[in-house]
Structures are given as C-alpha cells and as structure tokens.
C-alpha cells in the first residue's frame, strides 16, 4: 500500500470534498484525512489517501484532469507518516498551502502536448522526444507513461471501439498490434510484444519504453475484459543493448 498526500486547488469550495472524495474511492483508494480551506487563490483541498501502488498513476491522472481541479500536487508519504502528515498540515493549511514537491507525471506539460500529438498522429516521435527532454528527470517516466495511456485510450476510441468486447489475447492480436504497427515495427509472441528499433529507446536513452507501456495499458484496458491490464518492459534496447524492446502484457 502507498499513502499519498494530495493538494488540490479549485475555483469554488461547494461540493469539492464530496465530488473528489467519490473519485478517490472509485479509484480504489481510501480517504484517511481531509481538510478544505479557502484563500485568495480559491478553495484548497488537502487529502491523505491510501491505496495500491499500481493504482497511483491512475488516481493522479484522474484527479489532475478533473474539471474542478485548477492545480494538483501529490507527494508520496513514507509508511506510517500519515498521522504525522495529517497533524502537521493542520496548522499549516490555516495560513498557506504546504510545500509539496511534485511526484509522478508532469501533468501540465503532458496535457499541453497532447493536442499536438493528436493532430500529428502517428508522426508523434518529435513531440514525445521533446516531452522527454522538457520534464524533470524524476517525472520523465511517469510523464511518458501518462502520455502513452492517454494516447492509447484515444486511439482505441477513435479507431477500434466499434465491435465486441474481446479477451486479452484477442485484444492484443486484433487491436493493440495493428495500432502499434502505425508507430513502430512490432511482432507478437504469446503475450509479449517485440518492438524493433523503437525511436523512443536509442542506446543510452532514458524513456525505458514507458510511452509504449502506457499506450498498451490505455488501449487494452479500454478494449479488453477484464479492464485491469498491466504492461511491463522485459528488455529495452536503451538499457540492455538488445536489438528489440520486449513488453509483456498481463492482467
């Protein structure tokens, strides 16, 4: 389990906690502490939540892109620090927002790049490489993962949504592979995808196939039943010096 302290700025206070509290619960997290206050910038909501590590990026993405959220910051709390965080933020939030260093994706940069990415799809590598260089090193992988997820869901809805709900193996074969082939040469062996010469993974590169992991998670999560799909990089030519990048898909 991970515990996150999330700070959100919204334009108005009414219903903020109820609305975003539902989002937290719907994404499999438990709300441990919360505090709402108002200042000259707007309404602030500080929440301490607990949930599975695998769902961290998902909840961050949903909250960061929620229509009531003007700004979003989150930080990972060390285990057992919840009580301390909740009590320590109580006096602080009376006057000014607590200082929180961003963890996870650089949502703002990803969001600003996505429209260009949609416009130029599938010729998107210049945008992705630019994103890779623009974001802070600690946010790089998470940002590429987020961009990949959003792109995967978008491509699925645009081109592959009409039809029956498929099992994972069929969704890989009928949807993910044809879609991925518009971006990179790929072969499928069982539930492993072998990508050849991925422009995102030059030798010594830093992205670690994260864009493609997110792309496949977004696409397969939206297309297959059940919806929880995980993709991990078994080999990346940027790290292992192998010719192919290998991604493994699992439930």
């Amino acid at each position, binding site marked *: 389990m991970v515990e996150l302290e999330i700070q959100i700025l919204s334009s108005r206070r009414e219903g903020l906690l109820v609305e975003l509290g539902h989002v937290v619960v719907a994404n499999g997290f438990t709300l441990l502490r919360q505090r709402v206050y108002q200042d000259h910038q707007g309404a602030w909501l500080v929440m301490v939540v607990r949930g599975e590590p695998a769902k961290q990026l998902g909840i961050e993405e949903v909250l960061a892109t929620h229509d009531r959220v003007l700004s979003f910051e989150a930080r990972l709390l060390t285990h057992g620090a919840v009580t301390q965080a909740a009590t320590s933020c109580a006096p602080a939030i009376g006057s000014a927002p607590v200082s929180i260093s961003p963890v996870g994706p650089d949502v703002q940069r990803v969001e600003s790049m996505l429209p260009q990415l949609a416009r130029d799809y599938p010729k998107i590598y210049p945008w992705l490489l630019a994103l890779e260089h623009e974001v802070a090193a600690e946010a790089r992988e998470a940002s590429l993962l987020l961009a990949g997820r959003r792109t995967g869901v978008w491509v699925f809805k645009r081109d592959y949504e*009409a039809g*029956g709900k498929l099992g994972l193996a069929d969704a890989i074969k009928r949807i993910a592979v044809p879609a991925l082939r518009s971006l990179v040469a790929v072969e499928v062996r069982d539930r492993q995808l072998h990508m050849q010469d991925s422009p995102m993974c030059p030798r010594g590169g830093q992205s670690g196939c994260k864009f493609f992991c997110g792309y496949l998670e977004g696409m397969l999560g939206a297309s297959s039943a059940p919806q929880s799909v995980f993709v991990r990089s078994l080999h990346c030519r940027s790290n292992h010096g192998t010719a192919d990048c290998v991604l493994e898909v699992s439930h």
Partner: protein
Amino acid sequence: MPDHQHYNTWLVLLSYLISVLGSFTALQLAVVIPLASTSRQRMAAVLASGAAMGVGAIWAMHFIAMLACDMGMPVTYDPVLTALSAIIAFVACSLGLFIASSGAFSWAKLAAAGICMGLGVTGMHYLGMAAVMMAAYATYDMNLVASSLFIAIVASIVALWLAFHLRGRVQMIGSALVMGIAVCGMHYTGMAAFNIDDNGGQQPAGFAHGMRGDYLGMTIFVVALVLLAAALIVHYKRQQRRAAITI
C-alpha cells in the same frame, strides 16, 4: 436449378448487392450497440440494425430474387404472408444482433446469435414462398431445405464473428460480403429445393387480389433507397464522432 425456373442474371446480381448493402448497414449499426449508454439507445440501435438486416438484407433480397425468377406462369403474392415474412426476419435478426452485441465475446453467444439470424433468414424465405400464389402445386426437396438452413446458420455465424471479433476493413466489408452469401446462399438453395407440379391450371383463391411483381418492385426500390440513405448517415455520423473524440 429446376427446369421450371429461369433467372435474369442482372436481377440475381442485384439481389446479392442489396443483401450486402443491407448487411453492411445492419452490421455497422450493430457493432456500435455495445457503446450505447442507456437502455433506450441500445434498444433503438438493436431495432435499427434488425430492420436493416431483416427488411433490407433479407426480405428485399428475397423479393428481388423472386422477380429475377421466371416460373413460366403468372405469380402473385399473398399480402398478409408477405408482410408476416418481413416481420419474422426483423424480429429474428433483432434478437440475433442483440445477443451478439451484449457483453464480452463468447462462442456460445455467437452460436446462439447465428442460429437466430439463420432461422430468421430461413423462416422469412419459406414464409415468403408460402405467400406465392400460382396455378401449380408446390413441393420441396427436404434435403435441400435442410442444406439451406445449414448454410444460413453457418454463414451468419461467420459474418457475426467477422463483425464483432475483428476490426478495420475486414470487419466492415468482409462481414457484409459474408452475410450477403448467407442470405443469397440460403435463398438460392431454397429455390433449388422448390418444385412445382401441374394442378390443371387451377388458380388459388385470392390470386387476383394478390400483390403483383410491379408493386413489389416499387416497395423494394423504396427499401433500397432507405438502406442507401441509412448507410450514408451511419458513415457520416461515424466520421463526425471520430472527429469529436478528444485525446
């Protein structure tokens, strides 16, 4: 084909074309049924695709093929049975498409949907043939009747598999071409099973009040126009929806 049946090749080709057009419209409406957000939307999509398949692809195809067939004697059609044959096709196809489009893909569901559609095609055909009024006795070769049912079911299953399991052009075009084969394959096998025996020139009761071929031709023309318009609207709406999806 039996000696008493002579076909106009162009009308036969037209019958396949109309079944493909109807199938295309129906299956393109059907593959978006799972995307319906309310039960009302879902029901509307099921009924629209059932109508395109039952009335367009099957019923209209059947009567174009009947117009293509010269049996060497005047023929009229019982209006009640003719209307009933359209209703049977519509209901069976709506049910089949409803089953095929609900929940996750499974072979059992596909088989059930294919059997519904196959029975719909076959039921429509033989009820449509029962509506035929002419100065002769009609008999059937039951082996060929069974074959026609088998063709309709198997080809329907294949067409539904293509429509709901695949994506892209094969899904769109392939499923319609195969469903056209299901409908036409069933019809012409059923016609091969159809034999007539002389009854001494005795016309059945109601022959004079039956629908003549030229009336059917007009009805089919209207159905074809509606199908074409529906296919264009489906295509336009899909392009509009595709453009509206934001990343």
